[in-house]
């Protein structure tokens, strides 16, 4: 038996992508946890930005809303949503974290609705919120999501947030800032990157004790596979210790298994 759960693994992996001195816009939940872990471990200069207006707080505990008091605690600025979004539009934000109900091989995300008729949704979700804005304007989008065939679909019912749209060049053609787009996808099974030539999802590493077949079976589209598929580096003892003792002692986030 593993000495960590899938959520702890995903958060640890996500945190490693955040180099010291970069900026990241995060939501509540796993992304915020990953940012807090990175800040406490290897990225003390991580500039954390919340869309509702909090900039560079010293997060004392997990926020419940991206606008709650925790996002302002010992912050360097409390400002407006427009100012945050304009910083994104100016290119000041390196990373963002996103999730969604559906994702396709180009990293397009759906958090709007399930169904074929917009005005008669089978299921209505909350909508973009800031997701489309982050996915359009941040330099690198990291997607953290559970993986199964209901989520990893050939075609999302609604493109809420742009991945590489229909492939290479499509973002630029649509008018989105060049050089942006999905960077990594971190699931309970594997870590994916994106192939530059096709804009398609490619397996980078498979988590310990997960089989390649299991990854394929839980993906509703054809994955690109590199010649050598690595095994994801599991959470280190240090990562787990900080995560469990400092970042999320009440297990609000790491208490939930991702499925």
């Amino acid at each position, binding site marked *: 038996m593993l000495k960590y759960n899938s959520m702890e693994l995903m958060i640890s992996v996500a945190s490693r992508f955040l180099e010291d001195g970069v900026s990241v816009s995060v*939501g509540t939940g796993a992304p915020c946890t990953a940012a807090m872990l990175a800040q406490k471990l290897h990225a003390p200069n991580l500039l954390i930005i919340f869309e509702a207006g909090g900039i560079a707080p010293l997060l004392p*505990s997990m926020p419940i809303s991206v606008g709650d008091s925790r996002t*302002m605690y010992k912050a360097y600025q*409390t400002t407006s949503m427009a100012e945050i979004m304009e910083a994104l539009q100016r290119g000041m934000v390196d990373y963002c974290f996103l999730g969604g109900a559906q994702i396709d091989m180009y990293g397009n995300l759906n958090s709007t609705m399930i169904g074929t008729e917009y005005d008669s949704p089978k299921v209505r979700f909350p909508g973009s919120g800031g997701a489309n804005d982050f996915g359009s304007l941040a330099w690198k989008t990291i997607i953290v999501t559970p993986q199964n065939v209901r989520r990893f679909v050939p075609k999302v019912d609604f493109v809420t947030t742009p991945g590489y749209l229909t492939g290479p060049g499509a973002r630029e053609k649509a*008018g989105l800032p060049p050089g942006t787009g999905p960077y990594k996808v971190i699931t309970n099974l594997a870590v994916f990157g994106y192939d530059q030539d096709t804009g398609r999802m490619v397996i980078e590493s498979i988590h310990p004790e997960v089989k390649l077949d299991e990854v394929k079976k839980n993906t509703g589209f054809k994955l690109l596979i590199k010649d050598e598929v690595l095994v994801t580096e599991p959470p280190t003892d240090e990562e787990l210790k900080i995560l469990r003792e400092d970042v999320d002692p009440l297990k609000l986030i790491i208490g939930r298994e991702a499925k």
Partner: protein
Amino acid sequence: MRREERKIFTEVDPDAMRDLFRRKSKKLENKLMSVKNAVNSMIHDGDYIAIGGFGSIRIPTAALHEIVRQGKKNLGLSGHTSTHDCQILAAGRCFNRCDIAYVIGLEAMGIPKMTRKYFESDAVEYTEWTNASMSWRLKAAAMGLSFLPVRTMLGTDTGRFSAAMEIKCPFTGRKYYAVPALCPDVAVIHVHEADIYGNSHINGIIVSDVDLAKASKRVIITAERLVDTDFFRNNPANTTIPFYLVDAVIEVPYGSYPGNMAYEYYLDVKHLSDWLDAEKDEKSYKAFINKYIYGCRDFNEYLNLNGGLEKMKRLRDLEYLIKTDKEETRNA
């Protein structure tokens, strides 16, 4: 990509708004009133309303409950991250159209079932947006413009089902979406301090409330506390919203409860969770709404139902990270 013909729910034309703003009084007048009066006289069936704050953060709960109690109908709603505020208005089936950036859900806490059902029904018509584009729509109105160019929503269904239109920059040839100005009939904003004239101070994040106050035809302020006007005269940097934008001022201590008020009190997670649970079926939903909204004469009754001053004190401890006992901390 084909653009869908989606509706714009508010005035867009700055000249129409100029005529209204011209007629707005610039006098220093006492604008104090009760929540009942403000909602009764300033919010009419069919109006398009926008709520300040951020869904469960610095929201004017007292006014929201009163809108439900007074049975306002056919409102338009600015769904610019509208979470618990949206949930309250959905409980009263108060709105029939909505600009959606983010609605229904309570962020990481979950999705209230009956509120979702309301949106899935034919009762509500909507147009799709994002948090940034809604912020910028308000900013366009605040700047006295009919549109602003933006770089989001391009290439997506979000853009296709918005009412944005593609334009080109005359200098660079760059493609933008133009988003139309959003000019609500009424804005309701909860603030930390206000004077009787409407000068208002917000501490912490502003979200979109400065632009919202400028963009709206009428502005209702609820405030944690009234202060003497010298609070503003002695430090003009305190003024987040100046008096001449404001039509009504109401003092409502703990006015954002069960939402968060920065530097005052934290969210009541327990009550919000109970509300989420109550939305699991029609019966429990109805009972809950009856108890907590229709059954309360006013906001103080609601506060007392939820633990009154003792609860407020505990939420203040939580806000300031003061650990009183283990259970409390866990509930945060």
